[in-house]
């Protein structure tokens, strides 16, 4: 009788890239390129986008841009948040954040 819900949970966990066993703040809604997404408030925007399956963040000269160093060095995760250029890896998720390609 546990099989059905257990299976559901297992599938959900295996689909999510968020590691189980970590207590997180409540999820909030934000958007990338108009597409609504959810993430725990305070998670880094780069991690949240990755967890949401958004990997390609823009186009650089000669190659696509995607989160790469996660520590503010490589500048590959540059995105536009509320009209301003920011590095996604240094920006915490907040409710209602409108994010788009740089």
């Amino acid at each position: 009788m546990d099989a059905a819900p257990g299976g559901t949970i297992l599938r959900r966990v295996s689909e999510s890239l968020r590691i189980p066993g970590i207590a997180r703040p409540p999820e909030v809604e934000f958007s990338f390129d108009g597409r609504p997404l959810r993430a725990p408030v305070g998670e880094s925007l780069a991690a949240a986008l990755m967890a949401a399956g958004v990997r390609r963040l823009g186009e650089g000269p000669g190659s696509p841009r995607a989160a790469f160093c996660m520590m503010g060095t490589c500048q590959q995760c540059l995105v536009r948040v509320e009209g301003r250029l920011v590095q996604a890896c240094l920006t915490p998720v907040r409710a209602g954040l409108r994010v788009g390609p740089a």
Partner: protein
Amino acid sequence: MFDVAVLGAGPAGMAAATEAARRGGRVVLLEESPQPGGQVYRAAPPGFVVPEDADKRAGDALRAALAGSGAEIRTGHRVWGLGGGPLVPQGSPPAPFRVDALAEGAPVTLEARALVLCPGTHERIIPFPGWTLPGVIGLAAATILLKAQGVLPGRRVLVAGAGPLLYAVAAKLHKAGAEVVAMADLATRAEWARALPALAARPDLLARGAAWRAALASRSVPVLAGARVAAAEGGGALERVRIVTATGQTESFDCDALCIGHGLVPATEATRLFRAAHRYDRAAGGWVPVLDADRRTSVKLLYVAGDGGGVRGAAAAPAAGRLAALAALTDLGILSGRAHARARWRPWAEHWRAARTGAAMARMMALRPALVSAIPPETVVCRCEGVTRAEIEAALDDGAAEMNQLKQFTRCGMGPCQGRLCGEAAAELVAIRVGGREHAGFATGRMPLRPVPMEALLGEFDYADIPVPKPAPI
């Protein structure tokens, strides 16, 4: 005016600020992240509760000591400008150091009599075909994702590169539920065997390493020794990775993430800006500032502690931070020479012990020239500017003989990462032609240390406020 400004709140910076403040200095610690910890002890965002581990405990201990030390802690401060000290007009007396930062998008300027730089490292990733595909991330990036964010870089992950981080990331991925499809270690088994005696000094690390290996073995993860990534492949994102094994065979692995790192490079932007003396030390990660035993640079009242002064690992960093703090206080006259002599021996001995293991690990992570030779001509080396190896070689054919010239000839390193990502590969390509990294040199340190939004620097102003000097004659 502060007595000591410490830049960077990793283990070295936290310990330096703690020590200097406890001994009576007026200390400020500046850090870009929201919380102290640095990359190795990076704290999870507020409200995230991650399971305890050895790193978290070590980080929490340093954070607790710092919090009680009396040092002014300024997190969320992105330092973009440094000045003063020796950077004054000819004939002017030495000035205090000036630190320009952005906090919440607003400019902040601080002054300090002494500066302790704890900039840490950035990761070396030597380009290979497909390294720019979404799904390829750094090993250090993977540790941040896993430890501080609790997010997997993918479901099926290949881990590749060099150094102990490789095993740490693979084991963590595995534990967190990802499938580690393979691990490609550049080091051969013989190299690890040679490093063992130095590791024996740290049974805790040795045990941790053994546990990691056991975890991988239990899931029969293929661990390929002496292997390198030949290419990452996929359409819009990573789909598979091709590995060249020690025997020269190619193996292909389907995966949606590749975590790869080829070692750590000391961040020397600030010491280059101050024109401190540097030397090239391949085993310590690359160009490092010349330091004395107390972490003094060649510039008066400027100190470097932690991996930014040469890779020696997180265990050695706090002791180096304390040495720098003690030297700074002594040079400022806050601590007497006798008190200094009494206080320094303990951190000195501690540093010596920890640095031995750290140095062995750093050697494993040293740049491997074969990786650079293997870069195909059409592969992008400088990602910010889209400069390929072929374009670099053409510039070298045209006579570029050192890094600043290469930058001018190709724009390699001129983009927003300011050469942090491409610098190692580019410098090595120059070095092949000019007879070594010493001759290839390094790009001159420039402000801003990180890209700064124009808006933040502009502030509110009227046109009449702009101090326009007298125009040139007609």
